[in-house]
């Protein structure tokens, strides 16, 4: 079967052991306001437009191919795209010579992507690295995720996942049979607040987490919380998650610092960045980090 992937990122060294390749699967049940990969949310391919690369009036090939007539030229000599009217035919991305319009998302079978992952196998063997599935929510394309992991395992590549957990255990449990490391986000223990900021309550997430730890108590797991100003940046929030996580064996807890580096990509796909300009105070983060480790 084929799955939809928007990026295969080599030499990833921040998430999981060693030098890893991350395969980003498209589609996510949550819509977190701070999401740093907004292009991951839609479950099918879409265009992204970076005006910095656009060469303007000397080209206009995109306008020639767009069936919706979504392109117009601004005074800055950059194309403007009406993303709201886009039917995702992707013709403009194929026509753009400057790659100002590019494609987020490609359909291929598992072997295609694992071939790419395997290219770096000589680095994994020295660094204990391997494949990491991320997204979007990788377990949403459940069957495809299983195929990717199985194929990797057959080629001697270790596996990890970054998941938001918001897929019912009954649907996604088989994915965890093929994982060596698990990164599992727990964003808030208050379901209402969770819903307000991510679009869904936390019931499914906590249930999946519990059942996952029971089914795979020996697989090392890192529970993670991105600290978002105004959402979960209090001591109580972090203590509550920390103490919840502590009950499970082989499970460590880590907080991640909020950043706004994804904001450019909102512009690329024609969306407004949902959060304001507020940044996370560095001292506060360090304080919460200390608490998380207690």
């Amino acid at each position: 079967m084929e799955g939809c992937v928007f990026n295969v990122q080599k030499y990833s060294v921040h998430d999981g052991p060693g030098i890893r390749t991350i395969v980003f699967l498209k589609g996510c049940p949550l819509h977190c306001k701070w999401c740093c990969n907004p292009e991951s949310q839609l479950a099918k391919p879409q265009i992204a437009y970076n005006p910095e690369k656009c060469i303007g009036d000397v080209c206009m090939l995109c306008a020639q191919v767009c069936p919706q007539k979504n392109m117009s030229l601004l005074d800055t000599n950059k194309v403007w795209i009406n993303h709201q009217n886009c039917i995702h035919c992707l013709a403009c991305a194929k026509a753009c010579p400057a790659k100002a319009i590019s494609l987020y998302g490609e359909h291929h079978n598992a072997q295609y992507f694992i071939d790419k992952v395997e290219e770096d196998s000589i680095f994994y063997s020295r660094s204990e690295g391997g494949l990491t599935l991320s997204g979007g929510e990788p377990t949403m394309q459940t069957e495809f995720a299983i195929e990717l992991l199985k194929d990797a395992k057959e080629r001697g590549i270790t596996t990890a996942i970054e998941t938001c957990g918001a897929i019912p255990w009954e649907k996604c449990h088989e994915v965890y049979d093929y994982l060596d490391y698990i990164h599992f986000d727990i964003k808030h223990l208050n379901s209402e607040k969770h819903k307000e900021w991510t679009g869904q309550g936390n019931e499914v997430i906590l249930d999946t987490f519990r059942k996952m730890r029971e089914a795979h108590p020996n697989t090392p797991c890192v529970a993670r919380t991105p600290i978002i100003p105004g959402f979960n940046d209090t001591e109580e929030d972090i203590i509550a998650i920390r103490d919840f996580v502590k009950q499970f064996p082989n499970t460590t807890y880590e907080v991640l610092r909020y950043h706004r580096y994804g904001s450019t990509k909102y512009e690329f796909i024609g969306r407004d960045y949902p959060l304001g300009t507020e940044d996370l105070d560095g001292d506060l983060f360090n304080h919460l980090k200390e608490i998380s480790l207690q």
Partner: protein
Amino acid sequence: MTQPIQCCYSPHEQHIMDAAAGDTNYKKGRERIYKILDRNQNLKPVIDAERAKYFTESMAQTEGEHLTLRWAKAMMNIAKNITVYVEEDNLLAGRIGCQGRYGILYPELDGDIFEEAIKLLPTRVTSPFNMTQETVDTILNDIAPYWDAKTGRGKTFFNDLYDALPEDTLKVTYEPSEKSTSRFIVNETASFRSSNQWVPDYEKVLKRGFKGLKEEAQAKLAALDPFDPLDNVNQKPFYEAIVILCDAIVLWANRYADLYEKEAEKEADPVRKQEMVDIAARCRWVPENPARDFREALQSQWFTQLFSRLEQKTGTIVSNGRMDQYLYPFYKADKEAGKLTDEQAMELLECMWVAMAQFIDLYMSVTGGAFNEGYAHWEAVTIGGQTPQGQDATNELTYLFLRSKQEFPLHYPDLAARIHARSPQRYIEECAKTVKEGSGFPKLLNDEEIVLQLVSNGATIEEAFDYAVSGCAEARMPNRDTFTSGGVYINFASAIEMMMYNGRTFKTGDELLGLETGEVETFKTWDDVWNAYVAQARNLLRHAFIQQKNIDRLREKHFAAPLLSAMHDLCMKEGLDLHTEFIPGGVDIGYFESMGFGTVVDSLAAIKKLVFDEKVTTLVEIREAMKANFEGYEVLRQRLLNAPKYGNNDPYADEIGKACDLVCSEFTDKYSKSLGIEYCLRYVPFTSHVPFGKVVGATPNGRVAYFPLSDGSSASHGCDTHGPTAVLLSNYHTKNPGFHDRAARLLNIKFDPSTVAGEEGTKKLASFIRTWCDLKLWHVQFNVINKETLVAAQQDPDRYRGLIVRIAGYSAYFCDLSPALQDDLIARTQQTTI
């Protein structure tokens, strides 16, 4: 969710910031070293003409004699007359020019252009020099006339070579109007240095002293057959030269002993007085006699390398060899005897580094200057690696060199770490830490590739295991290597132009420089394009090999090196100068350089993809776009820029790269035999990819006219978009390992500091180095990019297109980020570090 970028400053950067803020805490424990460094580091270099004067004076008196003997007599004249100086604060004695930063002259190389060059030197943009009126007078009256091309008696090597080259080779070598200016198409490097990079066997001097070498030469003299004409004409003057040379360096060292004894008497500070008395005693003993402790060993080595710098202009400065090996017995014995602490050992080594930093490798010619912009120097100090028996060679002194570089990240000396499959993890991690902390040092060289290559070219495995890094990225076996000619640099981007313009280039217009392979209108298939490129490339190779043969043949008539010959087993055995074209038993490994590899591969890949696969453009349109420097062809240029590129582990480009490499490999496999050497394909540009780019018009990879070529075996600027693992794999996939005539591929990798931050970052960098070793790539050096780089990238994005800011879950080109986000990143960097 992702980790935010973290940035860390190297100690070097920290020192600069601390110093600006008035904080000198970083100097603690290194007061002596910083005193010497601070006194000198910002001075504009000055030319000292003494060496040239005494050299010329002697050469004028010895015409007609055996060249090595003449050279030894000239060295004796220098040793007797050159000014000796006290090194303030330093624990080592010896310098070969005036106080401050200085460069010296080698008129045997370019004395015929001195008159012109000294007018330009004080104001030239790259690497300027000052000089006193007295120096100017000395140059004009005592030096230049003897080497004048028309009226002087000392014909320089360059003029001899110029006269020897056939007309069609000359045409691609020098500008027709400016005889000594390179055309940067087929570029010789033998006329601005008298030898390719070199490393002598210092251990021999430490163990036996010049007294021992002199006795060896005397024994050889005594054993000559007094009736044999060859012995009389060749060997006798050679060994006599060695005797004179050994006397010369000992005499020179004793002048230092005399000076320090005399000056010590005047010294008021009792501590310094004692230091000077001790220095005098050491100069009295070494390098004449074997060194007895670590301090004597260092002093002996320093005198020897200085004398070598006086003897000749070795390309990229004479190297220092395997210092952690030959110094180790002295270090170990002194430490066990309680005579030396690690801090004292580092201070002594750093005394040498700050003394080295005062000697500037001066290039009088425009071409030499362009190859070595910014007072470049590569006096490689080798550490680590394997013993001649193949055991791991790291020792406590190895780690001390790395510690010194971490704590005192001066760019002298050029530190080179040998890595092999069984290098201890501690060593790899200390190298990784030093890369992070310092300014890109050490560069790494790979035993797993180099030992194999040296053995396949005729060395014994013991000799190969004992190689020393020499110059930029080369490996030398100090008693087996005998080839010293500078190699030819070939601009293959010009071959691309010649393929597109029917044998011509954009800059030179109608002049036919290459072969007439036909106008592009006649090319119907990809094979037609490829065959035309290969014909042009082979034509440049042909001229390169013609140049090299003439260079090899003529050099021994112009240059001699009695010091380096005295330190070489084979020279002493055969009674032949190291500059001799062929020395029996020698392994002759030379190099020719492929320039603009990435530019060429990307150009060919773009043509193949767009003209023949996708058929969205034509060769004619590409040629017209090149002529217009892409003005009016912006859409086409974007297509070219976005075609497959070398450096991304993309088989489409890499297979073309491998084929380009094969063109050179097959050529040298066939014609090395005629040269009589192993003429190895190399990818090491120094800084010359910039001047080579200045003669090449727009190229089919979308590169605009006169922009620098890609450097070494690195990708074109900003074209390696798939991270450092892809860079290594592309390098690997474009090699032809079945051929043995291959040498260094220079590989620069930039890292964002966040990817190597902390202890975990060190471990991941170490594992990256392990994989580089597994891939058997020759060389790698790292740049860990800091805030300054980000600022520079913001101001000049074209030069920093490839700079990746990598955050897990989101990675982007720094230059693709909005200005505001760039500012954000820069600001955050400051917050997390100060």
